[in-house]
């Protein structure tokens, strides 16, 4: 269990650093773009695709951190009524559900990236489409891992819920 937590935490740190870099980049590039357009009537051609893909990356990394911290948006009305024992069981089932979905999406996105890899197009400045889209399988892979970890934790640690 300790080892699991250790890996989980390391991944979370890397994700946090990445998300901070991406957001900083968005703030800076977005603002420079505003200045260029309004003061000099010009702009950076690569700024818009860069910003758009930063959103994609933030979406998937943010979602992975949300999985780590158990902060996904959900409807929490019926679980309030359950006894602690039943709550554990339901929690294992729902996390298993999410795990299966994420594995299917992981597989689908790997297939998708393979396709994109065979027919690459340049998005901006030598960056190919698949390099930007690779975050999708990475994101679903990490989320699958996290849902699996959570199930293990609920089974093996007593007072987690």
């Amino acid at each position, binding site marked *: 269990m300790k080892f699991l937590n250790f890996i989980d935490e390391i991944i979370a740190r890397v994700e946090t650093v990445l998300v901070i870099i991406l957001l900083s980049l968005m703030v800076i590039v*977005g603002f420079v773009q505003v200045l260029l357009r309004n003061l000099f009537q010009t702009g950076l051609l690569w700024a818009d695709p860069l910003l758009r893909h930063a959103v994609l990356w933030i979406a998937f990394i943010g979602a992975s951190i949300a999985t780590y911290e158990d902060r996904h948006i959900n409807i929490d009305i019926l679980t309030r009524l359950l006894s602690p024992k039943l709550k554990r069981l339901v929690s294992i089932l729902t996390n298993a559900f999410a795990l299966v979905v994420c594995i299917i999406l992981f597989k689908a996105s790997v297939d998708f990236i393979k396709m994109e890899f065979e027919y690459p197009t340049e998005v901006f400045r030598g960056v190919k489409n698949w390099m930007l889209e690779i975050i999708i399988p990475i994101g679903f892979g990490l989320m699958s891992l996290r849902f699996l970890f959570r199930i293990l934790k609920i089974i093996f640690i007593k007072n987690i819920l």
Partner: protein
Amino acid sequence: MPNLVLIILFVLFALFRTPLFAVISAIAILSFLSIQTDLSAVIIEMVRLANTSTLIAIPLFTFAGYILAESNTPKRLINLTQALLGWLPGGLAIVVLVSCAIFTAFTGASGITIVAIGGLVFPALIKGNYTEKFSLGLVTTSGSLGLLFPPSLPLILYGLVAQVDIDKLFIAGIIPGILLVLILSIYSVAKNYKIRTQIQKFSFSNLWRATLDAIWEIPLPFIIIGGIYSGIFTVIEASAITAVYVLIVEFFIYKDLSIKKDLFKIMKESMVLVGAILIILASALGLTSYLIDEQVPMKIFDFIQKYISSKYIFLFLLNLFLLIVGMLMDIFSAIIVVVPIITPIALKFGVDPVHLGIIFLTNLEIGYLTPPVGLNLFISSFRFEKPIIKIYSATLPFILMLFIALLLITYIPDISLFLLKLKAS
């Protein structure tokens, strides 16, 4: 046609706290399998997250909102509205309504307002001789007030999902937003007129001091609304300007927050919320494209039309439906899931898409407060350590007031569309 039993099972999972994105994805996967489509189609739809420029505004505005929530802005905002309106009978209640509305516009409606502003003003209300019941109802209701004012996140999200011009929504929301604040203010004054509530005397020196205090924050709404209204910059540009402006003001001018201690934490926290919202949007994109391809909204329309032909009855039923949705789901998922299905139907009934957006958000705003499961009720019960039943009864009269506003907004389209028409002419 995907297996209906499985879909019902999936929805049941959703009710037991399964992450919504997983449930929506599962239904999307099932749908695509039922028409023998390769699952990479789901992923192709998800990539659309990276092809929509307007989405850029979401992380930037959310980041700015989180900075404002963590700094001393709530305090300065309350002081300023207090100096401005505190002399009115029931003034403090109006102060709460106005400052909450402005604050929610910037932070999105995620319960932050109740914690940040409600926590500050609740003791002041009690001290000012307002009853506990009234005060609880007021702070709970104010928690989602202001959703209709730019640059609120739900407005942007609605525009994105319904493919309506966000600039237009920003303008359309202003008068209905003011109407909500006004109706609640009138109720508050009427309710507390006889009770001797503490009233602060109006003083220019006080107002001057509060204005000077907040001098760097006061321009912000005017920059955003003015800039977009006059066409100087787009919503995306406004979001970049807001993020940089707020960052500089709170970290370097007021020095409320420190780069070392707070900045990275705020960045991460805000992006977790963005990730949680966008992953739902990503999974819904696949499901939506399936529903549109299969012409599901049109089939629902044909079905409804057999029983209802009047636009007004349709709008009434829509209100009921949305209130229930707003009770069950948070506002972001509600918009992402429901809007793509409802919009085409409403268009067929001749409802203006901008007007529809305002109806939508007003309903969801009330849904936040509707017992038994409205989210604000729980946040309030948790924050003020009061039993949930007490919160229910305290909020009820406020909900009734909001219903009146909702009916006005629904049946008088010009409340939403007047400013747009004015701008066009």
